[in-house]
């Protein structure tokens, strides 16, 4: 569990947004689990660090939250994307792809010539 890669600041926000986009409303524990699973257990999230990130996204208005009931009848706080959040996912995805492409060119120089 400990040998997974740490999640970089900023990337975590995008992962959260993307997770919420694909899964709909989800509570904190669910988001954490989902991120771990999606990464094929390569990433190790200290679940605690998720909450400040969630709070930040909420303060920025990309997500909202409300109390709900989980599948096995536990009260939990559910987060979901707002409209601004959806736009932000698109924007961030675009930017991320661009950055990734640029970095990729540097990493494989002979092909980019």
């Amino acid at each position, binding site marked *: 569990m400990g040998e997974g890669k740490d999640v970089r600041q900023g990337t975590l926000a995008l992962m959260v947004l993307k997770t919420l986009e694909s899964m709909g409303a989800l509570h904190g524990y669910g988001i954490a689990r989902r991120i771990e699973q999606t990464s094929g257990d390569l990433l190790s999230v200290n679940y605690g660090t998720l*909450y400040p990130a969630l709070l930040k996204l909420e303060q920025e208005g990309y997500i909202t939250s409300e109390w709900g009931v989980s599948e096995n009848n536990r009260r939990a*706080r559910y987060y979901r994307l707002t409209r601004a959040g959806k736009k932000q996912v698109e924007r961030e995805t675009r930017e991320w792809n661009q950055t990734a492409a640029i970095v990729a060119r540097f990493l494989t120089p002979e092909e980019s010539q």
Partner: protein
Amino acid sequence: MSLRSRLSRLAGLFRSDRRDREFEAELESHIQLHIDDCVRSGMSPGEARRQALIKLGGIEQTREAWRQQHGVPVLESLVQDLHYAFRAMRKNPGFTCISLLTLALGIGANTALFSVVNGVLLNPLPYPHSERLAILYQKSAIADQGAVSYLNFLDWQRQNETFTSMAAFRQQSFNLTGEGEPTRLSGHEVSADFFPALNVKPVLGRLFTADEDRVGGAPVALIGGGLWKTRYGSSPSVLGRGMTLNGERYTIIGVIPESFLFYNGYGIQVWTPIGRWNDPTFRDRRISMGLNVIGCMKPGITLDRARQDMDRIAHALAETYPDADKGMGISLVSFKQDMVGNIAPFLLVLLAAVGFVLMIACANVANLMLARATDRAREFALRSALGATQGRLVRQLLSESVLLGLTGGGLGLAMAANGTRFMLALLPDAVPRSQEISLDFRVLMFALAVSLIASIGFGLAPALRVWRTNLTDALKEGGRGLAGRRIRAQNAFVVIEMATALVLLVGAGLMIRSLGALWSVNPGFDPRHALSFQVAMQPDLGSDPAHIRAELRKIHDAVRNQPGVVATSVVAGALPMQGDSELPFWRGDEPKPATEAERKWTLFYGVEPDYLTAMGLHLVSGRFFSEMDSEHSPQVVVVDEYFAHKYFPGENPIGKQINVELLDLKPEIVGIVGHVKQWGLDTDATAKVQSQIYVPLRQIPDAVMPLVRNGISMVVRAANDPGAQIPAMRKALASNNAQQVVYGAETLEDVIAGSLAARRFSMVLLGIFAALAVVLASIGIYGVISYLVGQRIQEIGTRIALGAQRGDVMRLILGRGFALTLIGVGTGSVLALILSRQMKKIIYGVSSSDPATFAAVILLLMAIALLACYVPARRAMRVDPMVALRYE
């Protein structure tokens, strides 16, 4: 961070409670969900919970991280830090009181002294363009900074290229008569440019014109705002009114602001134009009658540039008037330097001293805080285990220091406000410009800065300690693991305190020794039971020499006939430590010197036969004057030992003749008296003119008599307390002639004390600072040794239980204190040797490394330190082994 996020976080500061509760619930549900998952996959509930907490990374840490995002972190935690700090201060009132008092004393003393330095040295003089003002002196064989002759001044004024204006001024007192009681007014005779040079405008009326500042000009006067208020009720109709000054009728043409300050203070009452004066002596280029010159330099002209300009003029004048000006130079000093320059070295030494006191105060508070930080090590360890970062803990400790420092600073400021007044009231004459000293913005900023620097000074050590602490150790050992290191830090502080206290004691000791040396200097006269005063003779006396002589006789008799008067003499010319008068002379068997440079000068006293007794001079050989030495008998003169040795080395001067051309005398030397310290106990030996001659008042020729009339003094020897005689003197002279005014009456002991005022001021303050330092340092060493005893109480108990003698225990503890003191004293001695060299300017008659002072001070400090250690050592000696062993 977006604006919205920022606003939302700021809002978070205020509605944090509900949101906090919600987050608690959310965390709770998170953990439950996690446990549910784990249990479903077959884990025991206990193990599931453990896994969930590990995966979360700690509940407290998560909470803290979430809160950091939630509120504005720095601000919120600052509020919290201050809250904690305040609570900590309240929880421990003893610690808080002692620290606050220590800091308030340290900061208060610093602020008070800084406000003096600020008012006197830093603030510009209260004139527009004050930085362009300079005082010009005539440099000659008599003095580097001598008075200027009027004719030379006129040439300087005309020929200079570097001053916008240049003006002459001369102190002059006026008898105001004709309206009620005759009154003595302080005043100046000034040239027309005087107020324009200082850039001072009248509040009413106008200033002098050039036409009024010359022979034959109309008699006009300016009055000061104070006189205007008290005597004329601030009425504008004062313009054009007449006033009789020294017997002449003047017309008031203007009023100078009451706030006008010149040298010794406010309250100058009258100014008259100087150029109206047509006395031949005044208009003799060789004679400077107490005239001083001030100039306002053109913008952009430096003092050096102005000096070059004046040098050029001095050369030209020497060419044109070789008889008067050959060898004469001109020296320039900035006005401020001239006004406050003498006090600067004293104030700077005092400022350094008071800085040391603050250093000791900080070391003491740091020690107290260290002691507390150790006691609180567990608290900190716990808090840090609960999620507080080390940075956060350090910040909290520093907030406590700053809160302490600022509160102490506030108290100190209040102390300073009163302390400054007290300090100046203690010795009013010691500091020039003292009326300008106040707690202005700069002083407040200084106090704030000092408080903050002090806070960091004493807060850093305990904060660093927390920074370096290994939490696990601290928790395990319940804080005791820190004790060893803490003791080392405390020891270091005590050594610093002892060293600093020693430096201050040496400073104070050197000042005390200087004053002692000065007091034991023989002034050459006997100040006990003697007093002197000045007499302004009635204005309508006229200039008939016979009249003047008769009047002097009457004055003498009026004073002599008072009960309790043993001897008295009228004095013309110089008066020891109060006024000087020099004359050129040459030996009767030598030709008249051809140039100014070859001329010899001597101090001159015109006295009556009883002067020897009244002043208490020591007659070395020959005789003093008698009633037989009159205007009709052969001319005689008495010289002092210095004169005899310098001008008649290896000869007996008695029977020899000297030539005093300006007095038109060729007297024969009939006696030698002891040297009098004319220039003050401390500076006489370095004065340019030290030789002295005494001439019988009656033999002063008729031509000079009108000048004598302008300023005579009297010296009186009384049978008892001379101060009590002063009112009787006034009455006697008033009944002799109602228009005569007595002023400047002072016992000769007061005159000597006054000449040492600046030194006494420094000595008293240095003494206070040193005492403060010693008290603080003793508290410091007492605290450390007490702590040591507390720490080792078990060990001591064991030792006693195993048979150690109580005396051994005492020796053990005292030895520890003694070792610390020894290191402190050693360090301090080296430091004091280096620093006391800076005091050379202000000490007298004692070397800056005076072994007696050092020895006395070292012994004193060690004795006090041992005493401070004795109290806890006694406690250690009395430790009951049973109690000690049961302890914990």
